[in-house]
């Protein structure tokens, strides 16, 4: 069960009153600073539940740190409750609530004026333009002083600001609540801790970081891509047997591919820095480590180990200022130079299992994600937020290790040109091996292991029969489908996301009715005499960039969530929302076309067929 409580060294999102989200790693025995909202020890949120709202309290005189207080929901909604109660009661009944949680000094005074009016509100909402700065009697210096000395998690400041506002009595309840909200956002020292899961992370990346890095993919589109790609848990893990190859044996000793074991595999092209892969891994149940209570001790040990190795994406963390980044770079340098002096991989005493041979395939045959990448290394850096580093050679246990396969387009299409695929593995007899230095021996095994891994990835990918294709790429979708379509099993769904419509429209046009009928009519000269297999691997021509009969039910759609504010008497859609790229998805299913000429039934269609038959033939 994951995300039960905040685990040490996990990444979390801190939601601040201003609406800003900060993503940080909760390292034990550090202080977390929220800027003007205060500083508190990280240990105070460790092993506490997610989604609670905490308030940074004033330091007790005998303590060196600020304690936290869990804010109960009754306090969070105090304003709304007061309003609801006032609405229920007679508007003339005067101050409705004596609720301490409502931010006010005492009932009466300026507030009573407003409260009495709350029944008839619209009367003068438009008449006065209240210049908040001009009407605020407290000077900036006084406010600063209040902030410094102010106690009670900023509530005092807000109450004083409200009281000293000269025009408060002229404000309607609408403008009053707006003013109060504004001040609350600015001064109240509260925050909420959210787990870094795919929805939270992508939202943060989209709204507050660089949306273009994740191709502007919104939650709506993420949901659609996952569903139309039918991405789900693909069956219990199945591992190939260890071929127990000795070090003298070469490629002949590789574990043979067993195609009938392969199931529940998805093909991905991801240019969102790993977010799409993370979303798929989440849907397939391989993104989060299970955190059992019993495992805790082991985990902590790992975590410290990991902290030493320092593979975390420090550059990605929420340090906005240049200086911060510099500092972190420095830290990283320090850390890496430290680790080089340490013995890197202390053997784990817990493992009593005999070591797998070099040619043992570490990947499951089911429930896997195969990533095709255009560069020589996949860019999956966002997976670091889930403590997975695709580049780490020796990785602490993570479910993605056995379920994430990556290969380049070169390895897929021209494996003979890829060195790591085509170079035969090193061999050595045990005697020579024992004479080598440990580092050379380590290298030898590492290379052999990599060779077996690459061979397995490439060969199993080329075997095809994938359960689906999911794509969010900057590459031309036509070129992707040209090579990916033959790899899909019959009936497998295709879901392609694009921030803009045009590439998908061009793609959908490749599967237009006109193209399909012409293709099926048997009068397209280029495809005459080709076998079904050749047509499946159709290289593309100017007129037919893709074999139009390989995809069924192609369709383009877009979704948009419109957010609403729901408050008593003030329910309406939000006034502004994120613009920019809308995002579209293209969907379809892989078809297995019948061999030979095939015509649709029905008069209208037949006429059309004849028409398209005659013209190209005369050309």
């Amino acid at each position, binding site marked *: 069960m994951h995300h039960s409580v905040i685990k040490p060294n996990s990444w979390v999102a801190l939601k601040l009153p201003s609406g800003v989200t900060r993503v940080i790693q909760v390292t034990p025995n550090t202080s977390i600073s929220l800027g003007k909202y205060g500083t508190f020890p990280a240990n105070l949120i460790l092993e506490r539940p997610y989604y609670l709202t905490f308030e940074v309290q004033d330091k007790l005189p005998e303590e060196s740190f600020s304690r936290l207080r869990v804010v109960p929901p009754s306090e969070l909604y105090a304003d709304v409750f007061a309003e609801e109660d006032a609405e229920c009661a007679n508007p003339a009944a005067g101050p409705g609530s004596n609720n301490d949680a409502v931010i006010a000094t005492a009932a009466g005074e300026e507030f009573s004026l407003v409260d009495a009016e709350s029944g008839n509100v619209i009367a003068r909402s438009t008449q006065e333009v209240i210049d908040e700065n001009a009407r605020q009697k407290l000077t900036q210096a006084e406010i600063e002083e209040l902030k410094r000395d102010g106690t009670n998690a900023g509530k005092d400041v807000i109450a004083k600001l409200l009281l000293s506002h000269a025009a408060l009595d002229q404000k309607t309840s609408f403008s009053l609540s707006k003013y109060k909200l504004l001040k609350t956002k600015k001064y109240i020292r509260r925050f909420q801790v959210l787990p870094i899961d795919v929805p939270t992370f992508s939202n943060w990346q989209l709204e507050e970081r660089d949306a273009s890095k994740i191709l502007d993919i919104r939650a709506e589109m993420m949901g659609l891509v996952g569903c139309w790609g039918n991405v789900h848990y693909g069956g219990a893990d199945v591992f190939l047997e260890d071929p127990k190859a000795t070090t003298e044996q070469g490629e002949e000793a590789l574990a043979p591919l067993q195609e009938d074991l392969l199931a529940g595999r998805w093909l991905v092209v991801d240019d969102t820095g790993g977010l799409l892969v993370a979303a798929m891994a989440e849907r397939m149940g391989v993104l989060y480590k299970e955190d059992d209570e019993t495992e805790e001790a082991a985990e902590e040990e790992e975590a410290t180990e990991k902290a030493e190795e320092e593979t975390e994406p420090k550059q990605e963390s929420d340090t906005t200022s240049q200086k911060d980044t510099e500092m972190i770079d420095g830290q990283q340098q320090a850390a890496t130079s430290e680790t080089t002096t340490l013995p890197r991989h202390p053997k784990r005493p817990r493992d009593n299992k005999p070591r797998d041979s070099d040619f043992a395939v570490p990947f499951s045959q089911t429930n896997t994600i195969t990533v095709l990448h255009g560069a020589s290394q996949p860019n999956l850096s966002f997976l670091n937020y889930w403590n997975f580093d695709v580049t780490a050679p020796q990785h602490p246990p993570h479910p993605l290790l056995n379920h994430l396969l990556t290969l380049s387009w070169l390895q897929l299409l021209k494996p003979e040109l890829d060195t790591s695929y085509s170079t035969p593995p090193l061999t050595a007899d045990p005697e020579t091996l024992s004479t080598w230095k440990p580092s050379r021996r380590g290298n030898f095994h590492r290379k052999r292991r990599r060779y077996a891994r690459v061979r397995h990835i490439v060969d199993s990918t080329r075997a095809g029969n994938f359960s689906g294709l999911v794509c969010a790429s900057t590459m031309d979708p036509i070129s992707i489908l040209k090579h990916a379509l033959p790899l899909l099993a019959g009936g497998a769904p295709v879901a392609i996301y694009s921030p803009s419509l045009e590439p998908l429209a061009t793609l959908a046009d490749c599967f237009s009715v006109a193209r399909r009928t012409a293709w099926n009519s048997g009068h397209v000269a280029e495809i005459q005499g080709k076998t079904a297999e050749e047509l499946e691997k159709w290289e593309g021509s100017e007129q037919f960039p893709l074999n139009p009969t390989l995809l069924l039910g192609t369709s383009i759609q877009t979704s948009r969530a419109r957010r*609403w504010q729901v408050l008593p008497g003030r329910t309406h859609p939000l006034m502004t929302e994120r613009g920019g790229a809308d995002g579209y998805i293209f969907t379809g299913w892989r078809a297995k076309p019948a061999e030979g000429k095939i015509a649709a039934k029905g008069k209208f269609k037949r006429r059309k067929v004849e028409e398209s038959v005659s013209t190209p033939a005369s050309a």
Partner: protein
Amino acid sequence: MTDAMTRPTVSPFLEPGLRTKPRSLAILQLSRDNLLPIYLQEASGEHDGYAEGAVVNTRYGSFPHSTMLNVPWGSQIRASKVDTGSRGRKRKRGPKDDASRDDAEENQPETADNNDTEATGVKQAVADDSGFIHVLPPTPELWTQSLPHRTQVVYTPDYSYILHRIRARPGSTIIEAGAGSGSFTHASVRAVYNGYPSSAEDRKGKVFSFEYHEERYHKMKKELTDHNLDGLVHLTHRDVYNGGFLIDGKSPEADAIFLDLPKPWEALPHLSRRKPQTQAKEGEDTAAEWVSPLNPKKAVHICTFSPCIEQVTRTVSAMRRLGWVDIDMVEIANRKLHTIRDRVGLHYQTDRGVNVSPHDVEEALERLAEIEERVREQAARPRGAGEDGAEDADTVMKNGDDAAKKDNDKTSAEQPPFQTPWVDGRLITKGEPEIKTHTSYLVFAVLPREWTEEDEAAAFAKHPCGKEKAVVGSIDKQTRKKERREQLQKIGDRKARRKERAEKIAEAVE
């Protein structure tokens, strides 16, 4: 059910395999948006009067099940020549249209009148010369498009977003009320599926579904069995407003909740961590221990699905009183887009979807100039006696226009422009003719897990404070500078040490 034993154990929705299987659900795609769910049957003799066994008849032809069995999913299936005419009638149909059939087959329907015993006598299907369909593996998306409607359906744009937001993941437990037509049920099963439970204690991802309407409950129950989802969906016939969400008095320990009910606020009090005060008033059973249906160790996500804004207001108000946080209301607008080739131009022949008018100013200009030319020619021609004299400028103009058109047609007839409707014209996108502008309002919220004083004390004991070494997050300038200085110092130290060591080694070598 006798064949329950022989059924494939895993639902075709979850692991369809590579080929179609008998007695399993398949979705036939007749045309673009015309889907037909069907349970494929092995041919075991005549079925319903068809010699080929069970047959699907559509406007695109007849398809015996035998032609769709054990083929790869996604296969294009040719229509078969099936004798639909003489079905049920006894003789007298005579061998009139038997050109393509041999005699043995032709006789089959007649001899096999009551042939339950003649299991072997299944007629081989003969391919027709036109007509085809595709056979697809069932997915929640296809099922949503093709399921028998019992209530308003939760469509893919909504449920995909909902499942994403309520964190439905492999291994989660979901409460769903009401089950309705089952589209959300199927989608949520796929989301939480992480294997079938091997025993009653084995906790796997599961959907606890509640349906008030008895008839719908029974239909749904059968559907779940047919789809092999029995171990993954627990369907209960209950009014949740009064009955709550416990299963035999025990908590389903839900991680996420989806309420598609007319009055979500009446169900919400049952979904609390502790007995809510509103219920406490009702009285007698206060002594009995109140059990929460929620997972005590996790924050619970909820989504309610209501078409009216008044429902939303009441739901949100109830949620606030019950301690739900992060309340967020959205509505989803989904648009489908079609791509078409927009063909405009004078060189096209009149055809469906073609606009024979100038496609740009140049073409218009060319044609106008041509017309003018003709008019001038006509005017320059010496006037004959009679008929021409009456002609006014307008008719000349009109004739000219027609002639130009004719001329155009002629040139195209002589040298037909290469007409390929799939590359001609400009590629454009259009919205579908009718769009769903409102489905329902979605209210999302989270209920954090309970946190008591004792829990806090235990956590504080485990992670005591006061030994903070560094500051994370936004730190003030001074601290940042100090930390930077320390770091540089460290690196400097290390460099110095390394230098020292190198010098020592150099000395030793010498």
